[in-house]
């Protein structure tokens, strides 16, 4: 995905449902608690920084959300985030292309 493709997702993030936008760094702050400050992973928790394209990253979180990918914890986590927030997280963590 390029920036123009991600733009609609980013704009959705300011849609009326969430009166204001999430701060991507604060959102990613939750992920850091396990995946590490730089998304590097440790003790078997996978690397997530620059490890996927944006589309792959979004697809992974959607698969976790739908219980379509084996997980100990990510299903329970991913179901707490909206599509818009997942797009912001993808923009934060996925490879820039």
């Amino acid at each position, binding site marked *: 995905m390029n920036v123009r493709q991600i733009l609609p997702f980013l704009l959705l993030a300011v849609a009326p449902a*969430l*009166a*204001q*936008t*999430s*701060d991507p*760094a*604060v*959102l990613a*702050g*939750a992920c*850091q*608690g*396990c*995946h*590490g*400050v730089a998304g590097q*992973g*440790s*003790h*078997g*928790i996978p690397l997530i920084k620059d490890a996927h394209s944006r589309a792959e990253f979004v697809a992974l979180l959607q698969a976790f959300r739908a219980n379509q990918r084996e997980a*100990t*914890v990510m299903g*329970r*986590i991913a*179901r*707490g*985030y909206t599509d818009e*927030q997942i797009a912001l997280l993808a923009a934060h963590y996925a490879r820039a292309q």
Partner: protein
Amino acid sequence: MTISRRALLAAVPVALATPRLAFAQAGAGRVVIIGGGFGGASAARFARDRFPALDITLIERSQTFTTCPYGNLVLAGRRTVESITFGYDRLAARGVRVVHQSVTAVDPAGRRVRLADGTDVPYDRLVMSPGIDLRWGAIEGYDEAASARMPHGWIPSLQPITLLARQLQEMPDGGTFVMAIPDNPFRCPPGPYERISMVAEYLKQAKPRSKLIALDAKNGFSKQPLFQDAWEELYPGIVEWRGASSDGRVMRVHPATMEVETEFGEKVKGAVVNVIPPQMAARIARDAGLANQSGWCPVKPATFESAQVEGIWVLGDATIAAPMPKSGFAASSHAKHAIACIAASLAGRAPPAATFFNTCYSHVGPDYGISIVGVYRPGPTSLVEVEGSGGISPRNATMSPQRRREHRHLEALYADGWYESITNEMFG
């Protein structure tokens, strides 16, 4: 309060002072953080990484921080207390002005805090994450002196957990380990049950004739089915847990005879007695007028600014954040959002939308970990858990034996990953 400029400058190491120029930038300002624990250290690190224009002073009375998380693994003999103790050098090297002093007073109108040595530190925005105080005397006879014989191991300092670990090691085989567990709300809802598990793991291999009796002021607890499945499987005949309706509430302690006394007057004697007493927000938060009659601090759920005093953001265990538990991960989640709100308010922008996050892993045996997850958004008066998200690890019965072993093993491994990541974020 009067500010002595010279005294203040003397109190603050100048090497790391942010250039004056920075204050002219939009969104710059002096942020003072009280407490260098899970909330405060996370806030300081996040502020340096994300909002470098902010001038950050972290005031923490202790030179080192011994995490409560993984303290239970010290009891199991898996960890040393040194391996869960951290210093503030790295935070200082990242540009945080670290001041090792006790804050004795807060002056919200004058926007400054007073330190034990009498100096005043001015702020534009104040963050408080001072944690908890134990309610001495709430259990009759359980005061600070009693805790030297009956340790709690419930605050982030080296001595209490070291003492408890030593008592456990010195306990004769066949002795009873007695625990008193408080009613809600208290620090780390799954913590007492992880402790039961880790002490039982140790007893099973080192003192197989010993028993653990846990007396609980509640009838239910966090991750209960998962803990109870594991105790039955791993520690049959070792762990006995008694809830409030089975006379589990401890009302009184007798340190001289190492006995605790329940509501209906039964006396239970232990070779080691671990009392986790009722708690409240730490004193500095109560003195600053942040707490209500419950002893805890109400906050605005969208920002974590105090609901009682303007210009002060309260984080972590001191707050009323239910249904979010009082956990280190939760405190670090409050911290990041509060810092973003503070940066926005200094820049004259609206605060960002809030989503709060928590996961608590618990170790229950060798290669056996479980977890609880929660994602929260602000509601009108309190936080609300996002529907369909979060929850506890699956129970044994829902998985094949092989998947079960794998799941418990992976969560024990990932728990170590969590501990490394979060402490590295705070102190690395």
